[in-house]
């Protein structure tokens, strides 16, 4: 035991280390992630961020969402919270830390991933016996509900909402939770987070797993059909998580990612909220076989 002189005080640890979509993170902002150790590729710090530069996009209400290019950095402004995103450092300018953490681990992290030459899609992925099924679709299409239905059958969560891939085209695990609107039923009871949704913490898969199939839930698909070639590519391109082009080479990387997925993975289209758990299980079993 070390006895410290009275004039020395041990300060609380302010840097927390975790892994988010495969990137090691040290953060001054408390992130709702499991702590881990290892090399950090991204440092999250508090600081002053000025919303200026080349305006890439903003919503009609300029206070809601805006994105600026500022040299090599990207400035993201959302609900009055400002983030300055560079490949190795994210500066957070926020008074509401809960909302800042919620935005950082999802939408802002897609920009961090882009800075690390990784593209992401909008979807959920669940794993069973080493094989992953990815369910893509816009908000409200039922992807998280379908993924959770599989989890209740013994599958494990790989990632919810944002999907990104490693060099071998495996889905990289995301934060260990799923989020649902409280109105979805009593299964999602609890206190809503900063985004107004309730967090559910299912069993998770902590390692990347090969994809057995991708199901895209979108209104243009009347029934569940296998998509191929350019139809599959077009459907996948509509599911890019953040369509903004914030970093050089993104159009190429999206082209390469979509081409590789269409070339190697069976891709299905289905109407929103149309697939039963049995259908999803059947798709995964057929494709694995």
């Amino acid at each position, binding site marked *: 035991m070390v006895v410290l002189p009275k004039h020395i005080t041990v300060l609380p640890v302010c840097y927390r280390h975790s892994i988010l979509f495969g990137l090691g993170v040290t953060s001054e902002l408390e992130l709702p992630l499991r702590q881990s150790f290892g090399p950090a590729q991204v440092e999250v710090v508090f600081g002053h961020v000025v919303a200026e530069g080349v305006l890439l996009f903003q919503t009609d209400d300029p206070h809601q969402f805006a994105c600026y290019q500022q040299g090599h950095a990207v400035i993201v402004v959302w609900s009055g919270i400002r983030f300055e995103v560079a490949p190795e450092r994210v500066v957070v300018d926020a008074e509401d830390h809960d909302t800042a953490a919620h935005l950082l681990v999802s939408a802002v992290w897609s920009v961090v991933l882009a800075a690390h030459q990784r593209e992401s899609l909008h979807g959920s992925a669940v794993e069973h016996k080493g094989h992953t099924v990815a369910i893509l679709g816009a908000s409200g299409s039922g992807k998280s509900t379908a993924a959770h239905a599989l989890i209740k059958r013994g599958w494990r969560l790989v990632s919810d909402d944002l999907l990104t891939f490693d060099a071998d085209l495996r889905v990289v695990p995301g934060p260990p939770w799923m989020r649902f609107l409280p109105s979805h039923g009593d299964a999602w009871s609890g206190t809503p987070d900063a985004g107004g949704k309730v967090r559910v913490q299912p069993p998770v898969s902590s390692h990347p797993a090969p994809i057995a199939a991708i199901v895209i839930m979108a209104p243009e698909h009347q029934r569940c059909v296998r998509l*191929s*070639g*350019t*139809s*599959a*590519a*077009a459907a996948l*391109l509509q599911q890019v998580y953040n369509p903004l*082009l914030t970093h050089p080479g993104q*159009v*190429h990387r999206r*082209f390469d990612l*979509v*081409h590789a997925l*269409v*070339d190697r993975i069976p891709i299905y289209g289905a109407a929103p909220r149309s697939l039963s758990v049995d259908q999803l299980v059947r798709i995964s079993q057929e494709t694995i076989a």
Partner: protein
Amino acid sequence: MSYRVPEHVHARPVQGEVMILDTRSNRYLGLNGTGAAVWAVLAGGGSNADAVADLTTRFEVTPETAEADVMRLLEELLRLGLIISAAP
């Protein structure tokens, strides 16, 4: 006349079709099976006559129909700048 693919256009075959990326407009485009066959000939330096001959060999189509299809597609590819004349 023969043609070539300009440097800002990238194409990949995918399951008998072709995905195209135009980095000048940042647009993605697709060609179906017939379009992919025509693209393969034109992008390989062949002429429109070569593409017509290729189509009549691969598909059950008359030379007149094949020529009309090739010319329609060629016109569109030239208009979009996805293919250009190889003439000096």
